[in-house]
């Protein structure tokens, strides 16, 4: 019999406490190597869509904020098109779609200045409610955690083809941001506990 010989994905290892050095060196005081930290700016004056702030904190199982987490987001533009890799075409040239932020050293709070994404189709063609994909790494996290945020009071959420697959519907609220003030959405991520955020194996 012939053998299947796919390679194995390189195993993950923790980002460790000094992920800043590699990913946001200017943030941690290593200046003069890169002009600016990648992912620190997602929008410019020409970006189409509704400006929003997405902010939050990652909490461990004791309720302590992680002060060494790195969070990345990836989202569609206001028309629901991804900047790159999207078979339907190129996204808004004035929007990066990708952001990276480190938690504040003292508070653990991270923040993204972005726009509200448009809806994106599920593989079967139905539309998913507007959402932002998250990827979280830190010391003590052995493999990056994948989750999504959705927006409050969005009528599409109830029929979202991704969210309706979740067995424990009472956990879906962990994926819905809170509108802390107009156009500012708070999304706290709980690694453990009764409010543990849903993380995906996707």
């Amino acid at each position: 019999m012939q053998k299947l010989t796919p390679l194995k994905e390189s195993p993950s290892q923790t980002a460790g406490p000094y992920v800043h050095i590699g990913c946001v060196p200017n943030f941690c005081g290593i200046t003069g190597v890169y002009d600016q930290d990648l992912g620190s700016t997602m929008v410019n004056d020409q970006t189409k869509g509704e400006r929003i702030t997405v902010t939050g904190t990652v909490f461990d199982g004791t309720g302590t904020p992680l002060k060494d987490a790195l969070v990345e987001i990836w989202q569609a533009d206001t028309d629901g098109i991804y900047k790159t890799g999207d078979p339907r075409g190129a996204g808004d040239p004035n929007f990066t779609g990708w952001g990276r932020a480190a938690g504040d050293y003292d508070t653990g709070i991270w923040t993204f200045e972005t726009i509200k994404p448009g809806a994106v189709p599920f593989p079967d063609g139905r539309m998913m409610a507007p959402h932002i994909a998250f990827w979280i790494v830190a010391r003590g996290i052995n493999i990056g955690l994948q989750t999504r945020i959705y927006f409050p009071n969005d009528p599409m959420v109830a029929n979202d083809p991704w969210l309706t697959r979740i067995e424990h519907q009472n956990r879906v609220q962990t994926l819905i941001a809170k509108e802390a003030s107009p156009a500012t959405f708070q999304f706290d991520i709980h690694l453990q506990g009764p409010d543990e955020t849903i993380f995906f194996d996707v």
Partner: protein
Amino acid sequence: MSDGPLFHRDRTWHPKPLSPDYKTSVVRSPQKALLSMNTTLSEETGPVFAHDMLGELDNDLILNFAKPGEMALGQRIIVHGRVLDENGRGVPGALLEFWQANAGGRYRHAKEGYLAPLDPNFGGCGRTITDADGQYSFRTIKPGAYPWPNGVNDWRPAHIHFSVFGRSFGQRLITQMYFEGDPLIPLCPIVRTISDPEAVAQLIAPLDMNNTVPMDARAYTFDIVLRGRRSTMFENRMEGN
């Protein structure tokens, strides 16, 4: 190029999130099962980084933080390899970011407390983007081993941290490269979060004498594999709900 669904991750090959001997993982690992989903456009697309973003010294940690005319202290090495997907295809345009301690095992970081000295000419970060075949290389100094607060006498083997972007946000990966022959590898609680010895071996770079530059720098080869993609031929069915 069709961007089909990503292969599912083999979570038995990756480290377990809860690894009690790596103490910080105890309160930072999810306790509920991950929810398994097939990828959608949100995971199959991802940011792309252009070669023109790179500075001339971004892949040279010996010089990129050094004062003019000076260089970082330590054993000069070249790290090179390919970024591939699980189908064995090279991944062009993959952004690699790497960071490491200096030759004495000290990081340039406000929260680092090891007594080994900083090297004024070493920052510890670099980056590069793979070429059309998925090849990359960079120059640095061999990092030192360092102690860390976990058990009372735990030491990290010499290692370089890697952050990797393929073509898809769902391929996002952070890992570490270790050096062939380091006796600290099997003792390290972070290495030991990976249970399969073959998986650990995938993170150990062999010394590569063929690509060593005589009288200058030894080479280590380190290939990185990202999630593969299914063929999209038969992906048009309606999904049940």
